[in-house]
């Protein structure tokens, strides 16, 4: 049934529709605005769950793929191809959406985290209409990024996440919000520029395909992901047409490095990480939930989708570099997290550390490690969303999240403290909770090729225990400062997302197959390209 509907487009554009509806609602009706936003946030989540149920990993997502011609621009050029019977040229911008075992978990993550962030937005009291408008707009961008199968479309969605996020950080954050928003925009704008450059190189050199037309053969340049993947994975694809069209090695390398930098900023990779510290510390908690829970994962997704799939050979020779960077990320983030006094910064550095594990998974270049990277992305998305949810609730009550000012909260906030402790344990990789599985798979994937680097990465788990326990225990255990004696436990509307996220963290921790099964054939196409011996 789902196959008959353009289900992917519906998922991606329902929030946009919601954003437009929000615009027509009265400024004062905050209740109805919130209700509308919730409806249009939960609807894509339900559809994504339906999609998850009907998705069969062995078949793949082909049945759900959508393709429409969007813009077709005739080109007037002569690339000396007339001898191949090519008589006309065009530049094609397709509207292509698709899903596979890699994007589906991330789409689900987007749905869950957005919904929970929407619920958690009760604390937003300023300019609600604009807030929810931007919030919904952002969701369309995020879904689009994970669903788009055309470079141009991907780029548009990618940028669509940037602008709403800029305003969400800059208007609703804490004291240093504007600086944080600027930092965010500058860094990510730079990343987008790199990405655009890489995409242009790809479209112009590897995005060609021929088809018979009325006047003869027509050569089409497009950013279609399938075309790119086919051309790049077939060394003879260009030679058949014309040697001038061949994507030369230096060009390939430059595209690859540009992509690594572009998505490395998003992930973030050391030393490109400082922007996200500011965002973590200064943006409003629901916004950080989205940011840390989903936007960082776009970096991981991009690395896998464009780095690993399109340039497996380049990635292969850069694997030691990426693995080293991953270990640096893990240890650097973890050690710095141990030294922070502000809980939000502890979480920010812990995100850097956890994203290092994603890098390790990607660098392993085998199915185990890559699945570990995706798993870790989803798991960290849930965990950091949960942690920032708690940060939001705490800040509402205590007006500080500095760990040296808080203490003994388990007495007045037993429920929240329990959830915080659970989230902390998940974050330090306790088996039975989601964090462990992603780490285990990434380490397992990488260990065969780089045992020493992996062992160094494992050391990060020790520091994770140190910073998590240090911060969580000093906030919740010990004596309670008098000024927090009257603090009240969370309301149901705040408790609900905490329970949902905790339940999910436990679910995929105890029964990881629920996620790994849908990924199981997602990497087949890429693994085949690698030389034997990398299959794991």
């Amino acid at each position, binding site marked *: 049934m789902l196959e008959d509907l353009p289900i992917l487009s519906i998922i991606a554009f329902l929030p946009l529709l919601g954003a437009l509806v929000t615009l027509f609602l009265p400024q004062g009706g905050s209740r109805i605005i919130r209700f509308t936003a919730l409806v249009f946030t939960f609807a894509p989540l339900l559809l994504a769950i339906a999609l998850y149920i009907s998705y069969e990993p062995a078949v793949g997502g082909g049945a759900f793929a959508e393709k429409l011609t969007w813009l077709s621009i005739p080109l007037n050029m002569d690339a000396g191809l007339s001898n191949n019977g090519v008589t006309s040229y065009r530049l094609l911008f397709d509207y292509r959406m698709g899903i596979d075992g890699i994007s589906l978990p991330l789409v689900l993550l987007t749905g869950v985290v957005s919904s929970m962030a929407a619920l958690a937005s009760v604390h937003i009291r300023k300019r609600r209409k604009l807030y929810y408008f931007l919030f919904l707009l952002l969701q369309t961008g995020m879904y689009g990024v994970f669903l788009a199968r055309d470079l141009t479309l991907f780029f548009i969605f990618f940028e669509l996440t940037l602008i709403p996020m800029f305003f969400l950080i800059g208007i609703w954050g804490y004291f240093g919000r504007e600086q944080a928003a600027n*930092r965010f925009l*500058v860094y990510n704008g730079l990343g987008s520029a790199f990405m655009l450059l890489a995409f242009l190189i790809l479209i112009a050199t590897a995005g060609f395909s021929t088809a018979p037309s009325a006047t003869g053969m027509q050569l089409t340049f497009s950013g279609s992901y399938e075309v790119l993947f086919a051309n790049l994975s077939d060394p003879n694809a260009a030679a058949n047409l014309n040697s001038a069209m061949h994507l030369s090695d230096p060009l390939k390398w430059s595209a690859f490095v540009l992509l690594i930098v572009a998505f490395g900023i998003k992930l973030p990779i*050391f*030393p490109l*990480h*400082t*922007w996200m510290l500011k965002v973590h510390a200064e943006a409003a908690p629901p916004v950080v939930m989205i940011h840390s829970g989903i936007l960082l994962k776009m970096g991981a997704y991009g690395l896998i989708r464009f780095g690993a799939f399109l340039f497996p050979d380049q990635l292969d020779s850069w694997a030691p570099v990426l693995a080293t960077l991953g270990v640096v990320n893990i240890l*650097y983030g973890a*050690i*710095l997290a*141990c*030294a*922070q006094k502000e809980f939000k910064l502890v979480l920010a550095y812990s995100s850097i550390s956890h994203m290092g594990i994603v890098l390790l998974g990607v660098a392993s270049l*085998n*199915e*185990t490690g890559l*699945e*570990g990277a995706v*798993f870790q992305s989803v798991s960290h998305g849930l965990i950091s969303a949960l942690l920032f949810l708690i940060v939001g609730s705490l800040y509402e009550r205590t007006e500080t999240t500095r760990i040296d000012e808080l203490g*003994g909260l*388990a*007495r007045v906030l*037993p429920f929240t403290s329990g959830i915080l402790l659970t989230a902390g*344990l998940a974050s330090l990789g*306790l*088996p*039975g909770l989601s964090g*462990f*599985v992603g780490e285990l*798979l990434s*380490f*397992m*994937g990488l*260990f065969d090729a780089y*045992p020493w680097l*992996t*062992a160094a990465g*494992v*050391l990060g*788990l*020790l520091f994770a*225990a*140190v910073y998590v*326990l*240090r911060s969580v*225990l*000093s906030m*919740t*255990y*010990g*004596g*309670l400062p008098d000024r927090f004696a009257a603090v009240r436990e969370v309301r149901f509307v705040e408790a609900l997302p905490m329970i949902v996220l905790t339940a999910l963290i436990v679910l995929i921790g105890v029964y*990881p*197959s629920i996620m*790994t*099964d849908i*990924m*199981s054939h997602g990497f087949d196409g890429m693994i085949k390209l690698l030389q034997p011996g990398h*299959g*794991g």
Partner: protein
Amino acid sequence: MDIVFSQYAWFAPLFPLAAFAVLTAMGRGLRTTGAWVATIASLLSFVLSLLIAIERLGDSAEDYTGRIEWLRAGSIVLHAGYEVTNLTALMLIIVTLVALLVNIYSLGYMKDDERISVFFGYVALFTASMLGLVLADNLLTLYICWELVGVCSFLLIGFWFRKPEARAAAKKAFIVTRIGDLGLLIAILLLYWNMPNHELDFTSFYNVFHSQSGLISTSLTTLIALLIFLGAVGKSGQFPLHVWLPDAMEGPTPISALIHAATMVAAGVYLVVRTFDIFAASDAALTTVAVVGAFTAIFAASVGLAQNDIKRILAYSTVSQLGYMMLALGAGSTTAGMFHLFTHAFFKALLFLAAGSVIHAVHTQDIREMGGLGRRMKITAWTFGIGALALSGIPPFAGFWSKDAVLAAALDDSPWLFAVGLAAAFFTALYMARLFFLVFMGKARGDARAYAHAKESPLVMTLPLLVLAVFSVAAGFVETPWNEWLGSWLTDGEEKGSFSSMVVISSIGASLLGLYLGWLFYGRTSAGRNPVAERLPWLTRLLERKYYVDELYELAFVRPLAKLGRGLSRFDEAVVDGAVRLVGSSVQAAGKLNTRLQSGQVQAYALYGVLGAVILILAIAGRRFW
């Protein structure tokens, strides 16, 4: 004989797990009802374990294995499974019996705590994970449960979360044991990539390592064994990772009995026994285990001599006895190790629970403030005495037989190990005598009113003491020089115990000497003065400060790490972010420069435009003509 109950062994962890789920979901509303739910769950587990054990008492009960696929990622298939062997059946009995008794005891001990249902929930979760650890048929499942028992231990140490000491102790316990856990994790990774078919279950280990097939080189085997041992060192509080265990006494006393004496800390020993095929394939690894065990045994026993907190003394005693077990394993005798684990679980749990009964009565843990309690708490004093005798290794109590087995194994391996073990036995008897005489004999030295109010604990607390006392007396007879039943049952008759009258005589001699000296110093006069300690104050201080190990770690690891953290923090702020700010500000400066051109005069802008166009035209024209 048909195996029926073994098939359902996985219910054993399921009962307490269900109890944990119920207690967590229902929250604090349950109070004592919740405590009963948890107790009944542990009773069910105990009954099941008993049935399994009885079923396996027959001569040739086959091992039963059941497994499911837990995770498939790429070429990796990870299983979750359980295995019932005689070894696991023995451990099941130990764990469920102690858990049941501690549950019953806690009904009285924790009666007035407002978070009693949380407490019982944690205990239930612990019992479930510990049973999972025991039953696990492969190293990964074991590791998962291993971490879970660790976190339960952490939660329970920090149960009284308002005390800063409890918070610090919980944190320390988790982090220090985690060092060992990482070793175990790396060992798992190594094994995974080097075992044929990536198998991680214990049967495959047996097949690969026992046959000396050479599939895995000796140096790699040693590395793997040492990494596994690192995990065991962390969990079982062996030197140098023993520092967390004495601090863990900040938790409620029943927890110290269950987790930090009888079960979880023994998990390290159990792990080594479980993977003993790997150790047996590497002499270097076995030697390391033996040396670390022997050193820990005497090191901790000597520290125990100078402590004044009743629970800390017992904690150091636990560390020392775990060292004994490791010593036995390192000497190559799994039977002796498991035997000592078995008897130690009973008498150490007994000692802790009796100590809890004392603390319950006088509300202090400092033995200098106790004294003469034997007259007010008869059952506690008698059972504690039995436990002390068992621990000291006085025949016919359980500890005597198992300690003898350990010492005999040590003598087989090396006389030096034997000598160290003997010295540790002497220290053990000495500090137990000191403890017993200072607490129960003589005159009350502490608060007179507290002494007057001190009375015997209720039946729910004394009943477990009595049961454990019976075991402390009788459990040793499963393996005696004339009846090596346990050894042949555990190892299918592969291991033979060695008996030597020299061992028996010297160990009894050492223990009696220790007890006598203890009586001489602390029992005869109620003053509790130790002439040796008075002669050598520096030695006393060294022991009281526990050889300054904590201070050394603080100096060697904690502070440099904190410094590194702060230094890197500044680096991140100044250099990494500074580079970004530099780029940002240089762009801004360039922008400022350009604003000079922006006069706001439209005509000026037009002029620039024209000039630009002219340059462009000249450039194009120039390219065409030159």
